[in-house]
């Protein structure tokens, strides 16, 4: 504790509890602040519940014998203690254990502090092994507010400042729910480079009412801060559509194939052993379905001045803000089985890895689990705000659904590529705009990949022996790693070289003009 800086005003007065103060302005004043007082309990919460569970399980017999004396238990630790007259020692041990536990919790709470200045967010924690982590605000890749179910009961939330790279997140766990929302807004404001604190530092009216009433409201409300985001999500996924999308997924096809294979093997070869090996597989599939379903429940996506906000989850909620320019590529895809219903899925590549898994168990890369064409257009308008004029929308539409024809805005594969892309050669192509590169692929599994120019890390063109024989080449836009690989094969050789040259130039220009690391600095200057 001695290493707390001298300037800490609340040093030695834990009753002040600055972290639960509702105004975030005081949290971002560059001084050190502490977490929510229940944090150690919440972090060690599961372990504590497990210990309690063991104790209660052991005491169960005892409770039975107290209330139902005809049951008599033998050989449990409580009996042993009572029979040998160790009750004093047992109580003493219990008391010492509790005191040590509470003491440890208190010390770890005291030692865990954070501060937010105009440049960095910094966290210090640990009793024996001190950790100090600092993250630059202009390098923020996303801010995630996570509310595990247990923490929600206490009205606490975890704020995660995502940085590029694996295990590079700064976690503020836990803060008061309202404080977390305020803090997110303030951190985003500081990071955005806007120089007008008045605009977003408007005092947040905390929901009035009794404590319990407030907790209930918090539990039910999908988004705590209606001022910061439009309360309406621009995409609504009904439960039926969600179930339908999961049932019609490729996983189901795999499951049906496995079952068909098993049935055939049982009927034809009388091989009943295989049925037993299938049981764990079915349990696995079941948990995958349930997991995917609950993770995608109460999905919401909305645009805010500081980026796109995506929320997921029923019991444990995660709600993430991706500032502008943090999306490295976008994939709009339609599996074959979704063709009939006209559904699409949107995934993104991003530099950070959130600790919380998003829908379908991936690292929060699925931005929209399922939606129709209108939903796709609305989400794309949020993700790529520069691509919203009519011409671009037409291009995106044609990228998604068009069969492909010469002169439809895309440069498509030549006819001699037809034997390499049987169904999609007419569609297989690219379009370069001043803001983004679009790649259109696949006639059966339709895909449209959009890579914003300022996010392209490098571009390559390559040619193997097969492609050389037909005068074809493949092009690849390199972005940060993720589920999307922006690669396009079977492009005409000379066209590919043109693509390579154009993209290399366009990228350099876009990178030089890009200010999204301080996304609002431009408007503050005007």
């Amino acid at each position, binding site marked *: 504790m001695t290493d707390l800086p001298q300037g800490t005003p609340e040093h030695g007065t834990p009753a002040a509890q600055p972290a639960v103060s509702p105004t975030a302005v005081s949290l971002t004043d560059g001084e050190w602040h502490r977490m929510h007082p229940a944090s150690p309990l919440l972090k060690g919460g599961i372990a504590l519940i497990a210990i309690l569970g063991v104790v209660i399980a052991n005491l169960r017999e005892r409770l039975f014998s107290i209330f139902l004396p005809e049951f008599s238990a033998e050989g449990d630790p409580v009996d042993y203690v009572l029979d040998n007259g160790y009750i004093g020692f047992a109580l003493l041990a219990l008391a010492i254990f509790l005191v040590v536990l509470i003491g440890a919790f208190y010390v770890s709470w005291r030692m865990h502090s954070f501060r937010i200045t105009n440049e960095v967010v910094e966290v210090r924690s640990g009793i024996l092994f001190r950790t100090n982590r600092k993250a630059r605000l202009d390098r923020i890749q996303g801010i995630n507010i996570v509310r595990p179910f247990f923490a929600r009961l206490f009205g606490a939330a975890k704020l995660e400042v995502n940085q590029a790279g694996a295990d590079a997140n700064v976690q503020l766990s836990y803060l008061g729910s309202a404080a977390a929302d305020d803090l997110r807004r303030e951190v985003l404001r500081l990071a955005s480079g806007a120089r007008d604190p008045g605009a977003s530092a408007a005092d947040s009216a905390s929901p009035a009412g009794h404590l319990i009433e407030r907790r209930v409201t918090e539990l039910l409300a999908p988004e705590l801060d209606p001022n910061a985001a439009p309360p309406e999500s621009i995409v609504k996924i009904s439960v039926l559509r969600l179930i339908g999308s999961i049932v019609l997924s490729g996983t189901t096809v795999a499951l049906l194939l496995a079952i068909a294979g098993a049935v055939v093997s049982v009927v034809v070869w009388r091989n009943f052993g295989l049925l037993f090996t299938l049981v764990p597989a079915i349990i696995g599939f079941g948990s995958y379905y349930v997991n995917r379903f609950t993770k995608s429940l109460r999905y919401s996506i909305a645009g805010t001045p500081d980026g796109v906000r995506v929320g997921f989850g029923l019991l444990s909620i995660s709600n993430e803000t991706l500032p502008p320019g943090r999306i490295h590529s976008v994939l709009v895809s339609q599996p074959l089985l979704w063709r009939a219903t006209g559904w699409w899925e949107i995934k993104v590549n991003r530099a950070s890895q959130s600790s919380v898994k998003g829908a379908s168990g991936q690292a929060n890369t699925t931005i929209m689990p399922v939606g129709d064409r209108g939903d796709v257009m609305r989400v794309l308008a949020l993700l790529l705000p520069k691509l919203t004029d009519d011409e671009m929308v037409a291009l995106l539409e044609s990228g998604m659904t068009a069969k492909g024809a010469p002169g439809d805005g895309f440069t498509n594969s030549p006819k001699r590529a037809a034997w390499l892309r049987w169904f999609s050669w007419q569609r297989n192509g690219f379009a370069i705009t001043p803001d983004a590169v679009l790649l259109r692929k696949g006639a059966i599994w339709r895909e449209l990949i959009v890579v914003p120019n300022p996010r392209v890390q*490098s571009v390559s063109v390559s040619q193997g022996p097969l492609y*050389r024989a037909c005068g074809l080449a493949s092009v690849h836009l*390199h972005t940060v790693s993720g589920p999307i690989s922006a690669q396009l094969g079977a492009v005409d050789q000379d066209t590919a*070289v043109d693509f390579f040259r154009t993209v290399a130039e366009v990228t350099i220009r876009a990178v030089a003009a890009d200010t999204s690391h301080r996304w609002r600095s431009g408007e503050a200057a005007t």
Partner: protein
Amino acid sequence: MPNRLELPEQEWRRVSPKLMISELIGTVVFWGLGIVAGFVLLSFEWEWAIWLVVGAAACFVVNAALTSRRVRAYGYQLREDDLVFRRGIMFLRIVAVPYGRMQLVDITRGPLSRALGLSELKFVTAAASTAVTIPGLLEHDAEELRDHLVRVAESRRAGL
């Protein structure tokens, strides 16, 4: 037959021909081990091992014959705002990386290349797939190139 993929107006800077020596030694060691393993198995009277020897020998001959072309296929170009790198003859690949995308530059020297005075320079960006590794640079050239890259990257610094 259509002509190969090429950027016509580019004047490629080539890597040191000494790289051929280290590549050849590598080829000899790798396929030589295969041939030796084949002979060892033959000495145990495993008849089929003759095919291992023949296969390894054939691979060795093809690889050795192509070494000089492969080394000459490496090339890089320092343009105004980006670095262009090419490699491969059968599987040709050309990459353009804007200087501002540089995250770090690595120089590595194995024991063999150190004996020949060669270095390998690796240009790392935020994208793993960029994969720009220039082998066979003279030590002095590699260090000069590294310093140059760091300097130009600093003047064109960009976010991710």
